């Protein structure tokens, strides 16, 4: 089915609250999914894959600060989806960069990592240069680099695979974020090395995709929509005679 950005964002927000997210996290998560989908980055598919994990997670468990100094922070997300309250980890990096000019934030043990791009867009819109890097350790070994220039609402994205897998490669389920207050971090994503480019999205690609999605709507499969609607319905309270009293006109429109 086709839905608008607002419809996807709205049902997402209600569904996340129904799952048990705090209100602020639900709003952020819904925007991340809708933003990703509108920019052709598979927000709905990522949510579909991660929904089973989200339903099993303890949403009261926040990322734990493992280490911090003035401009470097390491947080443990406890194998939760990035859709939970990981936004605070990003805000921590943002605050550090505002104060110190540059910050590095590592979020360990998280999944649904691709969705983080939706929140990083907000930091970039607030005037922050942001680069995110993570590696998927399955075969072939792939690395994904996302670069936002300050003030630009869309990033440049590069996904590539490595020809040679380092011997010491281990399971990697973390993200590294670098933020700089005053300078562009990556003027453009390019490399002198032999890379097998799997995907390269420029700002123009993503803007075109977004403009099309806002006009034509976005595809969401019926099953996922039904699941989100069911989760949203968890918030509804059954009507009683007391709740009906005084709530609008009765049987006659001339009441």
């Amino acid at each position, binding site marked *: 089915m086709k839905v608008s950005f607002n419809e996807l964002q709205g049902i997402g927000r209600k569904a996340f609250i129904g799952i048990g997210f*705090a*209100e*602020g*996290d639900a*709003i952020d998560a819904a925007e991340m999914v809708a933003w990703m989908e509108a920019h052709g980055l598979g927000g709905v598919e990522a949510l579909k894959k991660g929904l089973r994990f989200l339903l099993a997670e303890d949403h009261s468990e*926040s990322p734990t*600060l493992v280490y911090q100094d003035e401009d470097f922070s390491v947080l443990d997300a406890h194998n939760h989806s990035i859709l939970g*309250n990981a*936004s*605070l980890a990003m*805000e*921590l990096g*943002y*605050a550090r960069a*505002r*104060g110190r000019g540059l910050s590095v934030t590592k979020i360990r043990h998280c999944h649904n990592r691709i969705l983080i791009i939706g929140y990083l867009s*907000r930091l970039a*819109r*607030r*005037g922050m240069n942001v680069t995110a890097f993570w590696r998927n350790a399955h075969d072939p070994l792939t690395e994904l680099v996302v670069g936002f*220039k*300050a*003030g*630009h*609402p869309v990033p440049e994205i590069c996904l590539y695979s490595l020809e040679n897998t380092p011997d010491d490669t281990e399971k990697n389920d973390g993200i590294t974020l670098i933020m700089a207050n*005053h300078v562009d971090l990556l003027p453009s994503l390019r490399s002198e090395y032999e890379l097998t480019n799997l995907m390269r999205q420029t700002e123009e690609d993503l*803007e075109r995709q*977004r*403009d099309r999605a*806002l006009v034509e709507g976005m595809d969401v499969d019926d099953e996922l929509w039904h699941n989100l609607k069911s989760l949203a*319905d*968890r*918030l*509804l*309270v*059954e*009507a*009683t005679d*007391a*709740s*009906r009293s*005084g*709530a*609008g*006109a009765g049987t006659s429109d001339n*009441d």
Partner: protein
Amino acid sequence: MRRLFVDRHDDYAVRCQLACIIPEQRHGPVRLDRTAGEQVQDHIRTLRRGLLHPVNNVSLEEFHIRLKVFESSSGGQSGRREINRLNRRECPGKGVGHHANAATAVNQCATADLEILQQDLELQPEMRAATLKQDIETRFAWALEYDPKNPDHQHWFWYRSAEKEEPRLGVRALEPGSEKEMPLAIGPRIHRTHQLLDAFLDRSPRGSVVEFLMAHPRQKECVRRIQTMAATPYGEIQANLWHRDMKPMHLLRTKLSFFGASRFDPKSDRWVRVTMFQGAPLFCELFSDHGTDKARLAELDDWSFPVEPELNLS
């Protein structure tokens, strides 16, 4: 000249709209050299124009003009500095986040006309927690009147009904569903945030907002709202929406007047019959030959205000 009739509730709604718009810079910086009355009139007109002609919105043109200025300077950083300079000059006392919002607005306008309507409550994580507490005490003193020990202060709760998926009211002590309560009453939430901030500052007097939120993550949305709306004198309904004496009719009238409703005819304190779009311009008036007549279009700006009745007192 038509005389407009603005009753107390409609006036409140308009001020709410203005309060939402002015500090967000969606229609350009407020010109502080004008009187408050002129500013309000100016923004009412801009608001109405925005509703009628979103594509030709004056503020959008204003943003595009600015953008050209920025483009002629040496890159994006210079542009942002220019916006910040304008903000500091025209809206003194605002924080970094406020400046960033202006940069955001310009960038959004530059990329797509549609995005001018985007509304974000953005966090200012670098703010001192002590500043946030001070803002609550200065700007949200009404919320601190909430007394969690007084049953009258939490008499009602708001929920979404399964029957019509509409917000409804229940008596907390008597009716089921309070565990699914909608977080509509911002007053008690701000009170709670203030309490937690107080305890946090005892432990970390120089702590930042993000450090406070790492300790109390469920406060994120409330803090975002406080930080964003603190600059909007009419941005919140300044009442405890749980209070036994709260009348939902007041909220209904405010909300409906946002949609251009008029001729309010309350049927109880929970529902009201209204007239929509009275006096609204017809399609042909906007897009036929009439539509090219700017003076005539300007006359249509204020259609959503009811015309003052002509009373025959003889």
